[in-house]
């Protein structure tokens, strides 16, 4: 991890509202190469909305995003991918009726010299990619609806890391997985980290985050409560941040932190759209 120098991703003053509800309000976060940042918060805290802004699913109402210090405009998923930002969604976002290769290459298909789909080449590349992630995977010809949960997860991961991502966003990557597969995802994260990829890990599982993340960012009611290096805080501290919005001594408070001991915790704003 390299916490000095130019951040890989810098989001400054990001805001978005849906029908008058401020789902994300003046949020600033950054991510360095080879770093894993855990994004924590309740349902409706705005963490999924925030990462959807970075992945281009929602264009932000206000704020700036810089990649390697360069300001970029991310308005669509295409823009995000062009900037090396890949996302593994909680829902996996796979088209169930087409096969693994078609999903992995969806939106950036390999074409033959005649401009037609080169399915054979895509399948060949997919076989290589899947051999690394899930060596037992054989069902290349079948629609992904026929695959198990773990296999579908591998397809979604393969899609995200196959195109030389610099930034990886993982939204609840282990929510649907068994213990063995969860451990596998943990190994993968460590490997990607070593390759210098920056990872945003969105999760509600504190154990996962404490195992894998270098830093945590806690959100509540669309705002950042605080940021802390994992080694400087305890799990209880973080729970206090998530539930009460109280920033412990080891953390850097954000605009969403409750000021002073007597302040009304969490009484203010309704949450954003469901995460």
């Amino acid at each position: 991890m390299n916490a000095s120098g130019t951040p890989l991703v810098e989001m400054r003053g990001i805001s978005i509202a849906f029908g008058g509800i401020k789902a994300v309000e003046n949020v600033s976060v950054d991510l360095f190469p080879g770093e894993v940042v855990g994004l924590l918060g309740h349902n409706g805290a705005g963490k999924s909305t925030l990462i959807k802004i970075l992945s281009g699913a929602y264009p932000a109402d206000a704020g700036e995003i810089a990649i390697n210090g360069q300001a970029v405009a991310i308005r669509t998923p295409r823009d995000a991918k062009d900037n090396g930002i890949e996302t593994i969604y909680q829902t996996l976002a796979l088209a169930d009726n087409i096969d693994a290769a078609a999903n992995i290459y969806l939106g950036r298909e390999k074409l033959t010299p005649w401009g037609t789909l080169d399915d054979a080449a895509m399948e060949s590349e997919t076989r290589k990619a899947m051999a690394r992630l899930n060596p037992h995977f054989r069902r290349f010809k079948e629609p992904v609806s026929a695959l198990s949960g773990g296999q579908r997860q591998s397809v979604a991961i393969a899609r995200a890391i196959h195109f030389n991502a610099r930034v990886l966003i993982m939204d609840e990557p282990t929510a649907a997985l068994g213990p063995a597969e969860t451990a596998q995802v943990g190994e993968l994260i460590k490997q990607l980290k070593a390759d210098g990829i920056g990872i945003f890990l969105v999760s509600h599982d504190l154990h996962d985050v404490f195992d894998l993340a270098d830093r945590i960012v806690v959100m509540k009611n669309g705002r950042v409560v605080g940021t802390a290096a994992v080694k400087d805080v305890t799990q209880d501290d973080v729970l206090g941040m998530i539930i009460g919005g109280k920033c412990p001594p080891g953390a850097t408070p954000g605009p969403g932190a409750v000021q002073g001991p007597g302040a009304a915790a969490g009484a203010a704003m309704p949450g954003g759209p469901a995460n």
Partner: protein
Amino acid sequence: MDLFRKFEIDPRLVGMLAALAVIWTGFHLMSGGSFLTPRNLWNLSVQTSAIAVMACGMVLVIVTRNIDLSVGSVLGVVGMLVGVIQARWLPEAMGLEHPLTWLISALAAMALGGLIGLFHGALIAYLVIPSFIVTLGGLLVWRGAAWWVTTGQTVAPMDGRFRSLGGSVEGAIGAGASWALGVAAIAAIVAAMMMARRRKQSFGFAVRPPAVEVAVIGVIVAAVIGVVMLFNAYPLPAPIARRVAEAQGTPWPEGGLFISHGFAVPMIIALVTGIVMSFVARRTTFGRYVFAIGGNPEAAQLSGVNTRRVLMHVYGVMGVLTGLAACITTARLNAATNSAGSLDELYVIAAAVIGGTSLSGGVGTIVGAMLGALIMQSLQSGMVLLGVDTPLQNIVVGIVLVVAVWLDTIYRKRLK
């Protein structure tokens, strides 16, 4: 099942062909041998064409989880416009029976249909109005518009060359041309299969065993030759044959001459449409996106697919094909009437659904929809042949539609 999968043969397709065989044999036996005749099958090919052309587009529409209820009415208004263009405007501008009249009319029909389709598509994709409502509105609007074109008057007759688009004697290409077409088709199919095979082998993927490949090619070649022979076995009626012979300077012998119909132009149009649309659906990014949207619209969008533009273009394609079908229908009637295409939307949807297109989206094939159109039309013309009353015909077709979808549902469940 495993054998089908291993040899890459679609079991659903085999099932549909079997159903078609049962229907055809049944009608043949019940009608005392008048169904499976060159004449009846030739007529069947002509009658199926317009619906089959539109069914190709409807597959894409339904695959994206949408519907188009307006195709019959769009066919009506485009047919009227095309009638007016070639029977009133073009003769004034270029003279009667100008050699380009048919082409200009047909291109205009496809352009008009395409524009109407894009307009529907824009309302559905960008204004997010449900397709059911947009095209239900279209069903009413365009039927009314078809009346307004000539305030209800029928426009006739059509240009002579244009008429060949609808079949009839002008639209029969004859024995020699049919053989040429058959041979070209065989060459193209074999070349395409060989290329696909070589491509797979170059990546080290499994291919069918050579014996199976040869068998599949053999079946296809035999089928094409059989179809050519069948349509060539249907002679022109004597008076017309005599006119054709005299036009060629051949003396008319005592016993008459056997001059073949050969393929009908509308059938060729439908087959070419089917091939082009299959290619679009399976080999282009557009087709891939259509299916991805049907499988999971959100995933397609998050993958960077411009789902709205794709959806709008799907309706554009549907419109172009409806314009083409309007040419076939108008040419076949040799008249443009404002009621042309009434209820066609239902037959087109039924053809697509019988052909295995799932109304919940994401699943469907062009070849299935074309076979579906053929099954529907076979039922109808078979019942006409048997003298079944029209109300009973509708009852039978309706029941068959429901049963076909029920069987398909069972098949899909067993697949999982």
